[in-house]
């Protein structure tokens, strides 16, 4: 294996991890399904590159600002749709994602459907790793606070959450906002890594893939999401030489996982230092994994 190729795959995995972390907060911890996350990613990507290349902001600033723009849009969309239930919310986000793509297809300032080439390459493995560490820590700290617990309560039993005083609507909005920011940041990084943007990159398929990653990793597990994003980015690469059979296998694998291990890789648990120590036989509290909330 050659490092140049591996590095490319790792960077892409890192970018996917950020997007999946965001979606994990929304789907895994708050229990809301979104098929419009590629839309937030697109908004983040285009605004980040706009800030960076047209307005001359520094790279990191423009990527984060791109994320925030995605977040702001999510507040607007969230206000309209977060009161909807289950599939209705799902389809509304699907419509949103497709609508964003259509707008970008039409807007010629950003290149329209033909895309925006010639973006300078500003993302390397180090940048992505830093974004990942910050992203994971933020999410971990958030989840292990009263805010994170309130979001989990929304997922577990919305009515009960309400009567113990949790403003479920507000927490849904916050959750959507943060996950849109993550998606936006991932989008910005993708733009600066690919050096090219095109609305087609952010299709429904991308939203679906991220959702699959979250479920694959296990609902309500940060480490699971990270692991799943990594595995499911690498898997199609490993299957690359299978050509047309690649996504047949991928599809079958998804069904297989749902049937054989529906709790996902981590099943709502987290990999912790304690857990690793336990596996290695280092004395201490000998627990392999700990539930979120106890880190």
């Amino acid at each position, binding site marked *: 294996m050659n490092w140049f190729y591996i590095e490319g795959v790792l960077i892409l995995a890192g970018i996917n991890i950020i997007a999946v972390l965001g979606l994990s907060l929304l789907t895994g911890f708050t229990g809301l399904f979104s098929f419009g996350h590629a839309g937030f990613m697109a908004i983040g990507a285009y605004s980040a590159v706009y800030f960076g290349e047209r307005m001359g902001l520094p790279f990191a600033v423009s990527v984060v600002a791109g994320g925030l723009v995605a977040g702001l849009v999510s507040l607007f969309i969230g206000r309209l749709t977060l009161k909807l*239930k*289950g*599939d209705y919310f799902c389809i509304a986000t699907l419509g949103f994602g*497709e609508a964003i793509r259509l707008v970008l297809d039409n807007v010629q300032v950003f290149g329209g459907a033909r895309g925006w080439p010639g973006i300078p390459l500003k993302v390397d493995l180090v940048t992505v790793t830093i974004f990942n560490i910050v992203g994971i820590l933020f999410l971990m700290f958030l989840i292990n606070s009263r805010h994170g617990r309130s979001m989990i309560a929304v997922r577990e039993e919305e009515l009960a959450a309400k009567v113990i005083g949790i403003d479920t609507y507000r927490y849904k909005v916050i959750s959507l906002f943060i996950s849109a920011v993550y998606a936006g940041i991932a989008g910005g990084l993708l733009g600066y890594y690919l050096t090219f943007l095109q609305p087609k990159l952010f299709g429904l398929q991308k939203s*679906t893939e991220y959702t*699959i990653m979250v479920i694959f990793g296990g609902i309500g597990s940060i480490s699971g999401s990270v692991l799943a994003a990594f595995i499911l980015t690498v898997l199609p690469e490993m299957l690359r030489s299978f050509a047309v059979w*690649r996504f047949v296998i991928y*599809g079958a694998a998804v069904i297989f996982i*749902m049937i054989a291990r529906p709790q996902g890789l981590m099943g709502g648990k987290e990999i912790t230092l304690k857990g690793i120590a336990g596996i290695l036989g280092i004395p201490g509290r000998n627990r392999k994994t700990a539930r979120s909330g106890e880190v």
Partner: protein
Amino acid sequence: MNQILQQLINGFSIGSVYALMAVGYSLVYSIMNFSNFAHGGVIMLGAYFGFFFITLFKMPFWVAFIGAGICSMLVAVLVERMAYKPLRARNAPFLYFMISAMGASMFIENFVIATIGPTFRTYPQIFPAEPFSLGGIYVGRLDMMMFLISAVSLIALVYFIECTKLGKAIQATAFNPRASALMGINTDSVILTVFGLGGFLAGIAGVLFGMKYTVYPQIGFITIKSFIAAVFGGLGSLPGAVIGSFILGIVETMVSGYIMSQYRDLISFSLLILILVFKPMGLMGKSVEDKA
């Protein structure tokens, strides 16, 4: 004036395509309470079944038509057994069903690409192609045919659900699965029936779709529109699915024809969200307060 009439007819014709797909989808939703994303894949297979029955096995159209329906029925049942039943047995939350459905849809589409190939295939001409012309307004024969077949199958479906014992069992299960299981209804066979019916509808929808628009592995993509139509109408409601489909078809046509075709989906999706803001359960969906 002519143009408005023509556009209305166009809208109805597009709507009837959506309706045929949306009904099967909504039927499954009414029982299982999840979006069966594999429905598009079954429709696509239906189109291929019909195509091969007619071209390879030289079957007469109606035999191929019914045959494609039956084969798709088997596929839908198989998908249910493989991808959903194990989840059902475990009482898994609806999101697992949805992911499993996505996996199935991905599997079916790419399996067809890998085995049959990505080429577009054209049905031989079965019905005369030239449209009726009524004072400058054109109505396609195939459209009329599709409209008729959709109507007949929908009426048959409604008859089946309203007037047969099995249909009543389906209704009961949709209303309250646990209670109906306690009343001696075999939930499993109800679910199989529903998937079978949904599959049959998907199959004939596929054949009609293929005749009208050719056959290729990504046909299933169009079912997104029928999902949206079903949401418009209220998920799980069959009349809702039909009405939603026609509304979507006409709205799309009017937006393309009179506003801006470049932004068609933006406008129709915004309308969808707007409707949901005021009617959170769609047009025909029942609005219920949370039971504590």
